[in-house]
């Protein structure tokens, strides 16, 4: 089984639109939306949820005020400023370490499960899909990404699919690292803006750090041709294959409004470019 993750460093370069377009081309893939903070892939996939699972991230401290003597040992030991002087837990700051429970001399603190979101196993017109929702203001998005990836793997085994395509989150931190660890190939979607180029260099650094092969797609390549040349030059000198140069096209947004991917929505040149890009990505995955 092969795994491909689509990421970008910078947000809004077109990860999800490209992932959704691939869904119309690939015949034997499971899709996983690992942008668990702001998941959008389901807006195109319109999946039927088959199974919903509650996600418990980190635990959270709970104080029994009737037992608490306000000795403040927990307050003194908490490294996350998650307990105030009145010995009230600040939910957003608690990282679930359990130190307060350990130091409490009267056993007034218990670490309890914290529902941080839901993961879903679904079926769609493109095949099986794993996705999730992280509740507002929760931690542990990296952990939820791992849950989604495990769901996708078991789906692939059950449904005898040989490929998992992962729509990743923006950034370079915890959820991104969880989305790319152990995959066979990363497709980085960038655009010819100075911001995206800056972010591209950082995300390539992350891929190198974890020794994962990468290919690059320059999306909206015609908004600044000089910058597109810069990206091409940079990729060439670093031996990175550019698998697609996709011009800006308002059809992408139109398709999104109609809850379709670009391949379903329009059968022109533009779709052919995405199909051509997929062929190159597939070639690299199977190399």
């Amino acid at each position: 089984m092969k795994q491909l993750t689509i990421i970008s460093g910078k947000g809004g370069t077109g990860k999800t639109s490209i992932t959704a377009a691939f869904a119309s081309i690939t015949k034997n893939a499971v899709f996983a939306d690992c942008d668990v903070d702001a998941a959008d892939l389901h807006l195109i996939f319109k999946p039927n949820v088959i199974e919903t699972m509650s996600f418990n991230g980190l635990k959270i401290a709970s104080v029994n005020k009737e037992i608490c003597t306000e000795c403040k040992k927990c307050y003194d030991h908490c490294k996350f400023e998650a307990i105030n002087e009145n010995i009230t837990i600040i939910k957003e700051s608690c990282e679930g370490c359990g130190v307060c429970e350990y130091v409490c001399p009267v056993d007034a603190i218990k670490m309890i499960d914290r529902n941080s979101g839901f993961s879903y196993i679904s079926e769609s017109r493109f095949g099986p899909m794993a996705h999730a929702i992280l509740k507002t203001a929760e931690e542990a998005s990296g952990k939820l990404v791992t849950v989604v990836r495990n769901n996708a793997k078991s789906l692939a085994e059950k449904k005898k699919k040989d490929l998992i395509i992962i729509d990743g989150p923006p950034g370079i931190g915890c959820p991104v690292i969880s989305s790319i660890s152990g995959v066979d190939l990363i497709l980085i979607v960038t655009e010819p803006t100075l911001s995206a180029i800056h972010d591209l260099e950082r995300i390539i650094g992350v891929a190198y750090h974890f020794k994962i092969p990468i290919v690059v797609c320059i999306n909206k390549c015609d908004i600044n041709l000089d910058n597109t040349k810069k990206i091409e030059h940079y990729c060439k000198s670093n031996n990175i294959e550019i698998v697609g140069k996709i011009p800006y096209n308002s059809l992408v947004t139109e398709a999104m409004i109609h809850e379709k991917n670009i391949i379903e929505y329009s059968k022109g040149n533009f779709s052919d470019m995405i199909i051509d890009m997929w062929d190159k990505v597939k070639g690299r995955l199977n190399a």
Partner: protein
Amino acid sequence: MNISVASGKGGTGKTTIATNLALTLGKVQFIDCDVEEPNANIFLKAKIRESEKVAIKIPEVDKTKCDFCSKCSEFCAYNAIAVVPSNVLVFPELCHSCGGCELVCPKDAINWNSRIIGRVEHGQAEGIDFYHGLLNVGEMQAIPIIKALKKKVDKSKNVIIDVPPGTACPVIESIGGSDYCILVTEPTPFGLYDLKLAVQVVKHLNIPFGVVINRDGIGDKQVETFCQNENIPVLLKIPEKKMIAHLYSKGIALVNESYEWHEMFGQFFNRIQEEVKK
């Protein structure tokens, strides 16, 4: 006044709004909290004069004292320490520095080492007191760097905070303590869906907020309808124009290009002040 600029979805124009507002106002403090992918300085062009390392504490096990009892690994909620026969392994990138392993160790075998995970940089740009943070490539935890940045907030000034995308812990850490939050979105189904998530975050934190619609005209009217129905003020609309995208691609702020934009962002700030007074 402390104004944060956020969005659920990435790439909607947070940095565009934050930097143009800062350049319009002049004497403000600007803090780029998107430590994974900081871009504000591409537009503000501050000369960085100071750089401060951000380090977290990571346990180191003194193997002459350790008797491999496993109490530390049993306690660790993050699986950052593992005990195998006659060895202890620490996984620094998983450690949250809670101090639990040291507390439970019966042999006093845990010492602390500093691990540098990034840096905070400081500089000036046309009267703007500028800070940004950079998470080192390959590191997981953005929060300690955002915390280090938030310590720089000067309450006597107007402060503009550029927030990372999403709705999870780095966003909460960045927005916390703001007097007002600007949510930037685009008029598309993805923009709307992620705006609704961002609205939940700011409501959860009890911070007054308004919406900016960027790339107005590319999609549909659903974002405006949502804002109307929810009584959320739409503070500014920036039209979809090739010229704007082109300036952005070159790292040029709109307000530095035409006085019209300068005036528009001035009015935008007045509107925010009125909203805060409500």
